[in-house]
Each structure stands twice: as structure tokens, then as C-alpha cells.
């Protein structure tokens, strides 16, 4: 096999015991890193060494490791999910970094995302927003035949684009105001673009936006950092759709 490229990097990692304690950076050397490793596999190796040395491993959340569960995420060199475009952190590979580089790793920061430990943050505020209306209220067993309501392909495709959101919170972390507008806009659009979503359209947007505000997320000031950070390339058009729906409610 053509020998895999090996690099050495220095990590500056945010360490914080829990939400109450103050955090700080610690520095670790990651040596002999195979560039075909994923970023999280590199952290695994660092953690194995920390554990054997009797130290506390870096807490970071992850699960599917293939970019769909929305569990992973951190700021890497100032970018949510790292430097690559349109991927989650678990999909970033070490080939995106240079030999000798220093990599700064911090948690997603937002008032509505308290730190659990190190890089792991609590994003349940997003669940509470969904609970306020991010669904169509149909009870099990009530549904008509799936072909009873045809849906224009274009509307359905746009709804799918919006529904692709994995709820990782990168949009919030990237936003200068820590706004969740892209997250909420995506859900409002997903439902609002479909005929099934019409009956609850007004109350959905009102209730979700109200919950977003009360969770301490900021307002959207059109910086569009959210779209740039989104691993699923969710468009800011969804924010515009949300705003249109709010205006229609006639506050």
C-alpha cells in the first residue's frame, strides 16, 4: 500500500468539569496521526493515552459517526464542525490539517447550550422548541391513504431540503447572536411547504418562535453564518419563510 501520510499536530482543547465550573484550555500533542483517521478517531487515540496516564479523557459527544445523528460538534479553529464545508465533525478527516498545525477545539457556545463537560453541551432547548409545534398533530391510526393527497414534487423536494436538518446546533454556535432561526425556520418550512402542515401553520410558527425566545436564543441579524456552518447546507431561505409566516400571523 502506498504508505499513509502521517502528521503531528498540537491540540488546544477546552476543558471544563461541568456547567458550574470555569473552563480553561489544555494543550496536548497528537503524534503520528494517520491522515486517513477521522477527527474523532484522532481524539479517541488522545483519550486512550490520557486514560492510561490516569488523567481525565476529553468528553465529547458523538454516536453515528457518519454525519446524520447530529450528536457530534465542536468549534475547531473557530469553525463549527471544523474547516470542511457541509460536513459534521465526525466526517472531518485529518487530511484536512497540516503537519505541525495547532488545532483549537472548543465547545459550541450559546446561552441556550450550557456546557455539560469539556466539549459536550446540552442542546435540549431545541427539543423544547420542537415540543411546541414542530410536528403535524396526527394521532396514530387516523391517516388517510398516502396517495389521497398528491404533493407537488417541487414542494416536496423543498420540504425535504429543510427536513434534512440534523439538529446539531452548529447554526446557533456559528451565529454572532446565538440565534436558532435557521433551526426553527427549517422545521417551520418543512411543515409549511406540505399540504399536511397547513392546518397548524399559524400556531406552529408562533409557538415555536415564542419558545425559541424564551430559551435565550438571540435574534437573527442576517449574518448568514448559520448557512455557512450547516453540515446539511440548509438555506437561509428557510428563515425568510419563517419570517413571512410570522408576519402573516399579524402580530
Amino acid at each position, binding site marked *: *500500500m502506498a504508505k499513509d501520510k502521517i502528521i503531528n499536530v498540537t491540540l488546544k482543547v477546552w476543558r471544563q468539569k461541568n456547567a458550574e465550573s470555569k473552563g480553561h484550555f489544555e494543550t496536548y500533542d497528537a503524534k503520528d496521526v*494517520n491522515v*486517513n*483517521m*477521522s477527527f*474523532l478517531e484522532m481524539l*479517541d487515540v488522545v483519550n*486512550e493515552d*490520557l*486514560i*492510561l496516564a490516569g488523567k*481525565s*479523557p476529553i468528553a465529547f459527544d*458523538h*454516536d*453515528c*459517526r*457518519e*454525519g*446524520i*445523528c*447530529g*450528536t457530534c460538534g465542536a468549534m475547531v479553529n473557530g469553525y463549527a464542525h471544523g474547516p*470542511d464545508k457541509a460536513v459534521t465533525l465526525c*466526517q472531518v*478527516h485529518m*487530511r484536512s490539517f497540516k503537519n505541525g498545525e495547532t488545532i483549537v477545539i472548543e465547545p459550541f457556545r450559546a446561552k441556550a447550550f450550557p456546557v*455539560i463537560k469539556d466539549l*459536550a453541551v*446540552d*442542546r*435540549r432547548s*431545541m*427539543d423544547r422548541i*420542537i*415540543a411546541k409545534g*414542530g*410536528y*403535524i*398533530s*396526527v*394521532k*396514530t*391510526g387516523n*391517516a*388517510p391513504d*398516502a*396517495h389521497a393527497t*398528491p404533493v*407537488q*414534487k417541487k414542494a416536496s423536494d423543498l*420540504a*425535504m431540503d429543510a*427536513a*434534512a436538518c*440534523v*439538529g446539531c446546533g452548529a447554526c446557533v454556535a456559528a451565529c454572532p447572536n446565538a440565534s436558532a432561526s435557521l433551526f426553527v425556520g427549517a422545521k417551520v418550512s*418543512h*411543515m409549511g411547504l406540505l399540504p*399536511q402542515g397547513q392546518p397548524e401553520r399559524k400556531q406552529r410558527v408562533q409557538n415555536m418562535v415564542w419558545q425559541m425566545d424564551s430559551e435565550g436564543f438571540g435574534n437573527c441579524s442576517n449574518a448568514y453564518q448559520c448557512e455557512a456552518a450547516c453540515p446539511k447546507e440548509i438555506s437561509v431561505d428557510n428563515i425568510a419563510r419563517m419570517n413571512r409566516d410570522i408576519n402573516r400571523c399579524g402580530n
Partner: protein
Amino acid sequence: MSLHSKEPSGPVNEKWESHKFDMKLVNPANKRKVDVIVVGTGLAGASAAASLAELGYNVKSFCIHESPRRAHSIAAQGGINAAKNYPNDGDSVHRLFYDTVKGGDFRARESNVHRLAENSVKIIDQCVAQGVPFAREYGGYLANRSFGGAQVSRTFYARGQTGQQLLIGAYGALMKEVDKGGVTLFTHREMLDIVVIDGKARGIVVRNLRTGKIESHSAHAVVLATGGYGNVFYLSTNAKACNVTAAWRAHKKGAYFANPCYTQIHPTCIPVKGDFQSKLTLMSESLRNDGRVWVPKKKGDKRRPSAIPEEDRDYYLERKYPSFGNLVPRDMASRNAKEQSDEGKGVTETGLAVYLDFKEAIERLGKDAIKARYGNLFDMYFQITDSDPYKEPMVIYPAVHYTMGGLWVDYNLMSNLPGLHVLGEANFSDHGSNRLGASALMQGLSDGYFVIPNTIGHYFAGTPGALDDVSTDHPEFKKTEDEALARINKLLAVNGTRTVDDFHRELGNLMWDKCGMARNKEGLEFALKRIPELRKEFWSNVKVAGDNEDYNQSLEKAGRVADFMEFAEVMVKDALEREESCGGHFREEHQTEEGEAKRDDENFSHVSAWEFTGVDSAPILHKEALEFVDVPPSERNYK
């Protein structure tokens, strides 16, 4: 204890309807006083919790994730089957039933499978009503594609993320009930044990993963929907947190474990690239619709794929199975890839890979059409491998993917432990010894939306004492909490020299070598000897970081690996005991001259359900005989 499937009598296509009428009901006003614990918020758990709450039950929903939406179901890519027959290509409930029984190599219960096929139709209706954005055609109607093991197009899909879209639907339904107060949500909780009082499941003990606090929760019934155990192999396509813990602890409290040796190896995954590998990535089976699988005809042909002319390629699936071609069921596609590699025709430097080639499809349909179908999968492949599948064929190899075995359940999805119900991948019920693609999502949602809401009431109304008051004040809760905590402290106290992952990797390698794609007596006996040794070493030499009162991921893993170390043994034992080949269980001693799996219906047409007797003591085997009335067993022929 006798194993009674409680299948209703009568013709297979009438069983479920008549059973629904015959089952006892709980009066709507009384449901509010009944507590149900649902562990797991994947497709099975979320759909069950939401539907039970809609009926009026008081539901407590638990998951290990920070949010219910992160359950492993989210990773499903390819699609979900349903016998809608929208394409008018001859599909029907009966055909889906038939394909599933046959695909499972005649090791599933006919009545369960038929019910699944019936419910499949309603699942699509339900999901569309929830706003699941399934792919549509220009006319605005739903699109379908085909999957392995079927000759009709019955798979519904939402780009390459069907699982996420279905889960968002079920999660939405769950959150709706959370908002209404019908469901209380307990996230970041790991179930460590089940509490059995007077022979009935009456609650669970969990660890709060944030704080380490051990908590008790009581209920009138417990529903487990905690997923499969594929991570016993360490490397698999499962998410990292997938575990056997909940099922295993229930097993230790008396629930039988059925067919643990039935594991599915998925044929199209990205091959292992190094020792640091932490998991394997699936490339959806839907790719086999347009991709052609091949290897070089000559052993050790190291030319680049594009430099190998047509006449030097062997499209071995098309050659050996002309009528199904690249769409043979998973077990066959996997075994054939292994066979080619074993013969020295595997590609890449490791020789453990075959090609999946889209060149012909791109020429035929155009790059845009392929992109529309598989764009995100191609991107994912590129991101991981740094190779462009639009230009070079993908390299793929089989990997552990799904587990057909699970806790034994009767027709009502109740285990032999009264009050304990098991849904989704965690039970053993519908797929026999091999699951067809796009059928797990269907089963999870059938169990959760349509089966358990009917059958749980029958348990409550038909079982003396089921609705007696329960409370965590009962001494059994305290006792169970103490045991759970003692085990945690024991793990933390070892303070050895090897990490949890290191042990897990070793166990995984052993299982892959000896109890993986092909098994034989010698290898299984070796594993049976080695597992207890490894387990002993684990308990005397593992190093777990930190302490209990913390967000401690090292400790979480340790508990799960400790359970895999026990579970692995019954899995191997089951594989050893099953002296036949069927579906995903391939015993090298039992094959036809052409190397296909050879069943032994006379001696093994049964479910093997194991009873726990102690960690270092042999489990007891119970058998549930299987009867095939509507789909008479035949040799599975995909030629």
C-alpha cells in the same frame, strides 16, 4: 417455563384482525391510572411511547441520548418496505409476507410476519400524514425503488436518509405528547436493570449519565425498544452507543434470549482502513440497484480497475444468480464477497474488498440521474475514502450491520417475563435468520404504532394483579439500585492497565473471526473457551477513568463492554448448537455443493430461546417449534 407463542388460530390472513377483536380492553378512563415505561426512543420506542400516550396511558420515556431524536434509527439510509403496490408490479400483502418468510430462510413465525406485512401499508399512510417527505414523482405521487431479495419495487425512501425522516416523524409525535403531558421524558438515562416483583416487570433502575445518580422508576409494564447488539463485534455499522445492556440485564432477570447467533453482515460497507478504525460505514443497499459488483477474473490482478478490460472482470453475482443478479439477499451477497476474497480475487492492498461499479449506470442514465439517486451517499464515500465514485468504482466489503436475534417475545410482543414487552431490533420476532433490506424500519414502526398499543391493553386487562399499585418504595427497587451501584464501583476499582476500547476491540476481533460471516465447530469452541478468559482479564485489568458522579463516558462504555463480554458467550453457544446453515448463520460444515447455506428443517425448524442460569454457568435451551403452513419451506433459490 413453557414457550407459548400465543398465536391466534385461524387462517394466517385473519389472525390479527380476529385477535384485535378478541383481546381484552382497558376502559379509557382507567388508562390514565396506568403507567408504562418505554425504554428507547428509536423508531420502535418513539412510535410506541407516542401511540400509548395518545391512548391515555401515562408514559415515561427513557433514552441514553441527550435527545430522543438521536437514536440509532436515524442512521438508516435506504428505505422502508410496504405492500402498497403503487407501481402496479404485482405486489401484495401476501407477496411481502412470502418474501419475508423466504428471505428469513424459514426461521420466522409466519403469523408475526403476516401481521407485519399487513401493517406495512398503514405505516406509509401514517408517516405521510406526519409530513415525512418521501421521494415523489412529478405527478406528486410517491416514488418507489427495489431492494435486495425482492422482485417488486416496494421500498419508500427519503433521499438517503429515510431513517432520519421517519424518526423525526415519530419523535415529533413523541414531543407532541410530551407537550401535552402524556409522556414524561427522561433523556441521558441508561437502563441498568429491570425490577421484577412477584414475577412481573414493575420498573427499571437507571443511571443518570450527567450526574451518575442511580434512579428507580416504577410502572405497570415495561417496554424495551433498545435496539440491537451488533456492537459485540466492536466494528459494525451501528452507532457507537448501541449496546446489549438493557436486553442483557432483562435476560439476567429471566427473559429468554432468542436466536442470538442470527446476525446480519451487510454486503456493501466501506472496508476497514486501519487499527484506529472506530466504526464502519454502510453504503446503502439501494446502490445495488444500479451498481454492478465485480472482481478481476485473475487472482492477484493488481491493475487499476479502469485498466481491467471487460473480459477480465467477473460480475460474479450476475453470473451466479441471473434472475436476481446484484439484488440477491444480503447474506448471499456478503458470503460471495468473502468467497471471492478468500480465493485471492479481492481488491485493494488488503485483498478484502470487491468493486461496486457505477460506470455502466452513469453511461445509461447520466451523471445527474445517479446524483439525484445517490448523491449524498457518493459524497459520504468521497469524504471518507478520498476517492470519487463517479470516476472510480467504489470498494466495498461486508460488515456487521443488524441483529435478527433478540429477546424472545410471543405474538403480543411480550417476553416470557410477564409485563416486559420488547419491540424493534431488540426482539427476535419477524426476520428469521436473515432480514431483508428496508424491513427493520417497517418492523420497528409496526411494533410501535400498531401492535403494542393493541396488545398491552390485553395484558393489563387480562392478567390478575397487573394493575395493582406499584411504587419505588418496594424494597426490590432499593436492592436493585444497590446491585447496580456495586457493579459500577467494582468497575472503577479495578484500575488496571488496559482501556475499555482495547478489550472491546479484542472481543470484537474474536467474534468476527470465529462467529462472523462463516462459522465452524472448531472456531466456535475456541471462542467459547476464550471469552471467559477475556472476561476474567477484563475484570482484573481494565482501566476506567474518573468516578461515578460525573459525565463519564469511559464508565458508560465499560458497563456496556462488560455486558458484551457475558453476552458473547451465549451467542457463540447458540451458533455452535445450531448444526445447520440458515440465512446469516453459515456453518461451514453445512453447505451445498455450490457453497450455499444448507438448512436442516427436520432438526432445526425452531426458535432457540436461552435461559440465563448464571455468568459462568451454562444457559438452558428452550425451543419454540416453527410451523410453515402458507409458505412451505423450500431451498432458497435466487438463481
